């Protein structure tokens, strides 16, 4: 062994070995440090990535919310204007009711209703204001209201009626949802076909069935519709496509918010789509009363024809509509039954009738007797009845 100690070669090897070991250890340490660094970087990267995703999503939501807010207030203005215009149109229709202009006014009214409905639909998608009703309305009237909000309302036929009303809170949403269904039904069927509405009582409430004779929906469209009608609805107005398809998205939101159901999964016997709106008992009431007559403003404004308090007291009692009551022997069915106020003085109805009859006979005999001038003596009361004022 000892002879090897002096061998420089051995020493050299030894030194080289030690150096190599040292080197390896150092490299491994460096490699470990690098690995750790890489891991750290990877973690950091992942963290950044998820942060980025989150912030993008948040930004999207914020943008969506902002869009919704802007649209909501814009639609609110439009809805208000449409409602205002509707009132103006109602007034004009009453004012020019006897002129040929009424036809045009009705047409403008129709356009205005469609315009209002579009604004309402967008507002619904933006969680906005729907516009409310103070009174309950019959199911039939709500269906007709919906009918009036679409372009081709003439093609819609309501085949049955039920004696139920809809609570005031649900009137607008149900009308809007039905209008969207009817819009779809009339848009996707040929213009010479009829869209039928049947209203039926079912154990769960009331069904409004809309049948069209169109081409129906493809599986893809049906799936989309069902998805929109179900709870995972499209959020907001983005993603409705161009041109935007509001219908089912709007209906979905309304169903969720007001608690009624719409299904389009059956097909109509006429080949098109059958849409069924199920109104649960919570949204239904008994049939609303006939419209309460307007307050009798005009009744007070119309004095007795001859003036004076006595004449006013003798004047025929006005109806609840503020119109003078026409006296007739048989009672009229529709006029709200206020007690027939006995007239304190003057002729009874039959006496009055006799007088009028005599008057009419007089004028007729006067007219018939006109050629023979000799008969025209003083007794006929008809002589002064011809409308001429002789001073």
């Amino acid at each position: 062994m000892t002879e090897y100690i002096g061998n420089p070669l051995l020493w050299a090897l030894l030194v080289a070995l030690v150096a190599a070991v040292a080197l390896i250890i150092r490299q491994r340490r460096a490699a470990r440090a690098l690995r750790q660094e890489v891991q750290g970087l990877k973690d950091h990267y992942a963290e950044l990535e998820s942060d980025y995703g989150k912030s993008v999503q948040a930004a999207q939501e914020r943008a969506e919310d902002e869009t919704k807010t802007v649209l909501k207030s814009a639609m609110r203005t439009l809805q208000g204007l449409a409602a205002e215009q509707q009132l103006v149109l109602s007034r004009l229709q009453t004012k020019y009711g006897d002129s040929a202009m009424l036809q045009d006014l009705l047409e403008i009214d129709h356009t205005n209703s469609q315009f209002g409905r579009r604004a309402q639909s967008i507002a619904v998608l933006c969680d906005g204001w729907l516009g409310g009703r103070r009174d309950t309305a019959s199911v039939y009237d709500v269906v007709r209201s919906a009918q009036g909000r679409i372009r081709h309302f003439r093609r819609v036929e309501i085949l049955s009626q039920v004696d139920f009303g809809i609570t005031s809170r649900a009137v607008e949403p149900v009308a809007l949802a039905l209008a969207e269904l009817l819009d779809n039904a009339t848009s996707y069927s040929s213009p010479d076909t009829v869209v039928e509405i049947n209203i039926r009582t079912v154990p769960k409430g009331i069904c409004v069935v809309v049948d069209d004779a169109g081409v129906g929906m493809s599986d893809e469209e049906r799936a989309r519709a069902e998805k929109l009608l179900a709870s995972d609805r499209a959020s907001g107005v983005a993603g409705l496509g161009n041109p935007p398809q509001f219908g089912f998205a709007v209906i979905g939101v309304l169903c969720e918010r007001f608690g009624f159901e719409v299904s389009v999964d059956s097909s109509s016997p006429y080949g098109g789509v059958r849409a069924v709106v199920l109104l649960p008992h919570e949204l239904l009431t008994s049939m609303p009363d006939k419209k309460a007559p307007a307050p009798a403003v005009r009744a007070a404004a119309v004095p007795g024809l001859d003036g004076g308090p006595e004449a006013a007291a003798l004047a025929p009692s006005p109806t609840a509509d503020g119109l003078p009551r026409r006296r007739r022997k048989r009672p009229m069915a529709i006029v709200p039954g206020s007690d027939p106020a006995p007239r304190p003085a003057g002729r009874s109805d039959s006496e009055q009738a006799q007088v009028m009859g005599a008057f009419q006979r007089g004028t007729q005999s006067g007219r018939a007797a006109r050629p023979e001038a000799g008969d025209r003596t003083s007794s006929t009361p008809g002589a002064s009845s011809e409308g001429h004022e002789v001073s």
Partner: protein
Amino acid sequence: MTGQDAWEPEAAELVRPYVITKGRDLPDEEQLSLITLVTASADRTQRPTRLSPEEQSLLDLCSAGYLSVAELAGHTRFPLGVVRILLASLTEGGYLVTRPPVARARLADKEILEEVLNGLRAKFG
């Protein structure tokens, strides 16, 4: 939403008049004027169920005897033209009978009246 409903201004009628008329056109002026008289036709005592509430109430109003178009319009609170359209369609369906207004009496000859007046003046004046 509920808070906003509270101040809801007066709303227009839920069912618009053009839906009530089903989009039909105005009838001719000669066919149904303001003073045309209308009554329910006697042979249709059974009330059809397919009529709208407005048509039903018009029939109710007419069931007791002749009423003029103007009176009917007053009682229903609809614009006159709308009532005329409804009445025209009810007449077409055979539920109503219309009677043209009583023809206006022919005016007396002005000269005769003047002569009478002169005669009276001569006698009593």
